[in-house]
């Protein structure tokens, strides 16, 4: 279906190009942009390129889906080694260090300065820009930034007499157990596929728990993981208990946790705010969303972002970089950001875009769309809530997930598992430090 549609669109584009005056067609400089967005978000991403192409006559941005995030980063590595890299590539936030120290990218602030664009970097929303700044400069253009929020089924909570989910884990637990016990819903919560992000990393940030030394890796490569000494351990014990009691369900392979929620099986679902696009399209339930819960007696801090950014690859011609810079400028423009934020659920990039959306009364009609921004900018960020910056982050996360699975399978206690995850993670960090010593 999607392939057929894509082929058809490509065919139509080809016809369109053929019909246009040939001089103009030749003048357009082509810019390749590889991305990892599929489904509804993929359609929107391609539309971004189409909007840019329609806005001017000098450049053509060709947006190509190269699979999921892992496949895109692999694809760009292979292409770079073969000297056939695209101009732009969308890389997940976990790949920040890999890209930053790869010697294969042009920092976005430098690109914009070289091409005489004056960008007001200070207007970028802090929790987003801060994640991708190095020594005070933005290294990569934020594109799709999101943060996890708590989605809930309004009917389930009203039937149980709660109105809405509680703000602390302790009270939420009582609510979910009651909803299940009363038979209002089959399960209290669906475990998200990226639970390490929402239930461990963001949990640490919101509850002001250190995840690693050196401001979670921001201050140096010699960082060491600490999450085995914090309330992450009881948090994992809690999740295990929920799973054992059937209050939480795992969708597992071959099925998506989002379906468990949108079908009305589970009363809540902790997932990215970017689920808005598909929840709005697919959910047959009365859905709503709220802030992520926090521990009792803790002042909740800001959550941190996930998603991806657009990196500029080295090795292209200056006139092509002029086009890249024009596209970046277009990406950061208020109009595009407002549109993108509204159709996808991703966070707007700039304060100007946020204000523009707010001034039209958009959030009065769509209150759940504002949660991400409010949650991201809640309170004063501490060293524990600025974000996470680790080399080989994907590997570390993978080790942590494996250890979590061992807990769920009943093979290890939460403490043993997180000790092992920290041991494995630190080995991975030392390997990265050894290779990149003095570069950060």
């Amino acid at each position: 279906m999607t392939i057929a549609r894509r082929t058809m669109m490509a065919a139509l584009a080809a016809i369109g190009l053929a019909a246009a005056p040939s001089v103009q067609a030749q003048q357009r400089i082509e810019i390749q942009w590889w991305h990892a967005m599929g489904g509804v978000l993929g359609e929107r991403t391609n539309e971004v390129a189409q909007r840019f192409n329609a806005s001017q006559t000098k450049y053509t941005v060709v947006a190509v889906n190269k699979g999921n995030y892992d496949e895109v980063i692999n694809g760009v590595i292979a292409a770079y080694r073969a000297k056939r890299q695209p101009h732009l590539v969308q890389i997940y936030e976990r790949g920040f260090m890999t890209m930053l120290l790869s010697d294969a990218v042009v920092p976005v602030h430098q690109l914009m300065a070289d091409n005489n664009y004056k960008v007001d970097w200070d207007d970028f929303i802090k929790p987003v820009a801060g994640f991708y700044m190095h020594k005070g400069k933005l290294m990569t253009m934020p594109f799709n930034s999101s943060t996890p929020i708590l989605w809930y089924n309004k009917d389930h909570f009203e039937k149980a007499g709660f109105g809405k989910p509680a703000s602390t884990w302790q009270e939420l637990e009582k609510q979910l157990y009651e909803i299940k016990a009363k038979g209002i819903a089959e399960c209290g919560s669906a475990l998200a596929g990226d639970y390490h992000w929402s239930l461990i990393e963001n949990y640490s940030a919101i509850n002001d728990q250190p995840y690693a030394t050196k401001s979670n890796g921001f201050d140096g490569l010699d960082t060491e993981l600490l999450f085995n000494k914090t309330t992450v351990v009881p948090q994992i014990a809690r999740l295990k208990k929920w799973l054992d009691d059937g209050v939480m369900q795992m969708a597992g392979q071959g099925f998506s946790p989002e379906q468990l929620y949108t079908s009305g099986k589970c009363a809540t679902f902790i997932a990215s705010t970017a689920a808005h696009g598909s929840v709005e399209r697919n959910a047959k339930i009365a859905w709503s969303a709220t802030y992520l819960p926090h521990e009792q007696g803790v002042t909740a801090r800001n959550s941190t972002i996930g998603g991806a950014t657009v990196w500029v690859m080295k090795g292209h011609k200056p006139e092509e970089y002029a086009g890249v810079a024009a596209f970046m400028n277009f990406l950061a423009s208020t109009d595009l950001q407002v549109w993108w934020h509204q159709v996808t659920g991703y966070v707007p990039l700039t304060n100007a875009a946020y204000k523009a959306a707010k001034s039209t009364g958009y959030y009065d009609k769509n209150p759940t769309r504002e949660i991400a921004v409010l949650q991201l900018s809640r309170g004063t960020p501490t060293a524990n809530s600025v974000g996470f910056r680790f080399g080989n982050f994907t590997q570390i996360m993978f080790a942590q997930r494996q250890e979590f699975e061992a807990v769920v399978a009943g093979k290890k206690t939460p403490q043993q598992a997180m000790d092992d995850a920290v041991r494995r993670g630190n080995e991975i960090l030392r390997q990265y430090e050894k290779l990149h010593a003095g570069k950060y």
Partner: protein
Amino acid sequence: MAKAAPARESGLKRAHFREPRTAYLLLLPQLLILALFFFIPAIRALAQAFLLADPFGARSQFVWFDNFTALLSSPEYQSSIWVTVVFTIAQSAITLFVAVVLAFATDRVVRGRGTYRGILLLPYAIAPVIAGILWAFLFNPAVGPLAHLLHALGIPWDPNRNGDHAMILVIAAASWKHICYDYIFLLAGILAVPQSLIEAAAVDGAGPILRFVRIVIPLLGPTFFFLMVMNFVYGLFDTFAIVDAVTRGGPAGATNILVYKVYQDGFINLDLGSSAAQSVMLMAFALVLTVLQFRYIERSVNYDV
């Protein structure tokens, strides 16, 4: 008889290639392909195995045997070896056994033989990833119809949490995908069994099962041996797409077979050195296994008749 064969073979070679240059010329395309797609990648993998490298290639360090020692001392790698042994042996045995039963059964069927064969060959045409997704869905504890059946029978089936269940699931999916391969060869083998031998046994009063066990199976010895080697190679190398779709190596590494770990560490985690070291070790395992099979099992295979 046994002595005459090699003598004739060497005579044949000399008769046809008096001029060695022609022989080399004819071999060249094959050697080129081998060099390009096998030897060069293998040598590069070997070189990479001794490096600690940035994926983009900007920096690399020669680390001697660090990648290997790190692997051998890692509990995850040791468990992966064990998981691979269980998976490969179980998968090979199940595949061969079911294929034999099916080949015997379809050979016995008189009406609609072609249709049965066609249906049995179908899974081979399905891409591994699709097959994997199919199995993962059918046995998904939340929504899978077959998982519901198991629950109804009182079995607490949950491959997302129980490592043994996950293992059973990937073995079943991998075997299902490969049964057709074994089946084709066995069927061809059965058809090649001289009808006179079967008829003679029938005259002596042997029933179909006895005839199959006493006459057909021994005559299929070479086929069995070949399939055993092929099943091992399949289990060791070709199953990562199925594991990826069914369990992603989980839960907690319970189905993380060596070839999936190579893929996981190389392509997802971007640890090229470790991944290269793993593929070198995997190749060594496969080599040792094949040599052992040829040395010890082939001896009991009778190629005459």
